[in-house]
């Protein structure tokens, strides 16, 4: 039982990171309909930039986080304006190919610059264990989960309460009507893409402070984010969070009780089952099936 609680706690922690990175993808894939295969690479860039600013430039964690956020937001904005914009009206396939090309380019360019060695982001708090009854967590993990939650709340407020957020919601309901109402939809698309990119990057930097970040991590991260988005329902905020937690817990249980080698298989089994039995996902905002 104690072991079970420990697995549960580990799963929840891991699930928060899945949720954060999937939140970025649910904006890009669920709302913008860009099947973004470079999402994991955005995560990887966040982690590596985080390592660079904390270890090489010697900034403290929070300044570094702000810097990474700004750089990645600008990067996401540029990717949308320079690449995605050109294929927006052409359906899904060009977007898929474009982001696959982008992902190949980013991975290998990063490999040229940084190399394949795993790097660690310098964390803001120590790695001392905290003991809650039967559960042991480290201070750093709790801190990172707190950051995750803060980022999720901030993104939620951005979309629900600000002028830009209202413009986003209008654009994704009906782009034509939004344009007629005077919304600059091109800018809204770019901002949404930038927001999605930033969320992935923050997730990468936080997780990089707990584990390590590696150039080759992107593919698995992309796939897991897709798993969570499909499980939660396209474009659903709550779905991304619940889906992330479900995936995190399922993996922790599988790894704890069955086998650690095949942990990554859980996500793929979940996505295949979801698409067969519940193609709308758990919380789809639109009645839209896969």
């Amino acid at each position, binding site marked *: 039982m104690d072991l079970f609680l420990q697995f549960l706690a580990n799963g929840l922690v891991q699930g928060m990171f899945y949720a954060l990175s999937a939140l970025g993808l649910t904006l890009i894939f669920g709302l913008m309909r860009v*099947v973004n295969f470079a999402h994991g690479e955005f995560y990887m860039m966040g982690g590596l930039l985080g390592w660079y600013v904390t270890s090489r430039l010697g900034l403290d964690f929070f300044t570094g986080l702000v810097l990474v956020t700004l750089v990645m937001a600008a990067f996401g904005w540029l990717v949308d304006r320079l*690449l995605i914009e050109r294929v927006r009206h052409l359906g899904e396939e060009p977007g*898929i190919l474009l982001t696959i*090309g982008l992902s*190949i*380019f980013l991975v*290998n*360019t990063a490999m040229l610059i940084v190399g394949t060695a795993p790097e660690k982001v310098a964390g803001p708090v120590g790695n001392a264990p905290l003991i809650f009854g039967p559960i042991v967590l480290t201070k750093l993990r709790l801190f990172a989960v707190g950051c995750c939650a803060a980022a999720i709340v901030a993104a939620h407020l951005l979309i629900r309460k600000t002028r830009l957020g209202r413009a986003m919601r209008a654009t994704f309901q009906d782009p034509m009507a939004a344009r007629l109402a005077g919304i600059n939809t091109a800018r809204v698309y770019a901002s949404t893409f930038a927001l999605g990119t930033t969320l992935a990057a923050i997730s990468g930097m936080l997780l990089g402070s707990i584990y390590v970040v590696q150039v080759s991590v992107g593919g698995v991260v992309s796939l897991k984010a897709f798993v969570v988005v499909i499980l939660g329902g396209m474009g659903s905020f709550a779905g991304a969070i619940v889906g992330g937690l479900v995936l995190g817990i399922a993996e922790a249980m599988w790894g704890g009780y069955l086998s650690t*080698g095949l942990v990554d298989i859980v996500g793929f089994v979940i996505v295949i089952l979801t698409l067969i039995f519940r193609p709308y996902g758990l919380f789809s905002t639109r009645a839209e099936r*896969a």
Partner: protein
Amino acid sequence: MKFERNALFAFVALAALFPLLVRDQYLLHIGIMFLFYAVLGTSLNLVMGYVGEFSLGQTAFLGIGAYTAALLSQDFGLPLWATIPAAGLVSAVFGLAIGAVTLRLQGPFFVIVTLAFSEVLRLIANNWVSLTNGPMGIAGIAQPAFLSHESPLFAKTLYFYLMLAIVALSLYLSYRFVYSAIGRAAVTVRENRYVAQSVGIRPFRYAMIAFVLGALLAGMAGGFYAHYISVVDSEIFGFSFVATMIIVVLVGGKGTLVGPLVGSLLVTLLEEYLRDAKELRLSIFGLVVMAIVLFLPNGLMGFLARRREQYVASESPPQQVAATVTRTAA
């Protein structure tokens, strides 16, 4: 149709002459890899170019074929002539099973689930140590026995012709598929699913035929690869093969039979020229993919076809019919 058929014949004939003119192991190896990628491209093109669904899981079949051939050769001592067809067949059976699940989905969901399947297979290959020897892979796959008395050059030549036979078979099967009622039905599904359904075409059925045929071809290529390289590990399910296949199909032009051949030639040459810088090469590949999507969405063959149409149209306006005929031919 005629252009495509003649081009394919000319290609196979030229390729058959290649080992007679070139007596160099390295060049023969490049030739073999070119033919190998041509088969992979053709196999992906059946699904991507003719049904219009984008499969990221084609390496699943490549890997299944390679492992089948490796295991049959290692555990049962079957010779190469038996293992390669068996690899194709096993892979086709898997195609039937995977297609039954994945082809119910379309668009991005199909893409993600096919990718998920190949990842699952990669993980299984890595973890089912008693069958696949795990991450170590299966090494020392048997070469045909009589080759041990012959020169390496002769072995390369033999492998070249073997691969060429697989290419010829692939092109023949694809040609028969594309220019049959089945192929036309598949193209109808690609162009407009609802119209296809309204005239009584079941998209699932035709997509399945293309998918299984693609699996068969990729499986045979995988079987060949296992014998030729003589090592199989789980990397064969990895993303780098998918990326290469996509580029082969895209550069050449999807939805044409000649396209993957052209694409394969360019990719093989580019790969050899940039061999010294591995990451740089892949970076350039990524840029190439993006550039093609943005500037040459129909690949080289699509570009040439359009130029020819424009040329014909501007040369002799009354022969508008000829232009249309050319378009259907290409």
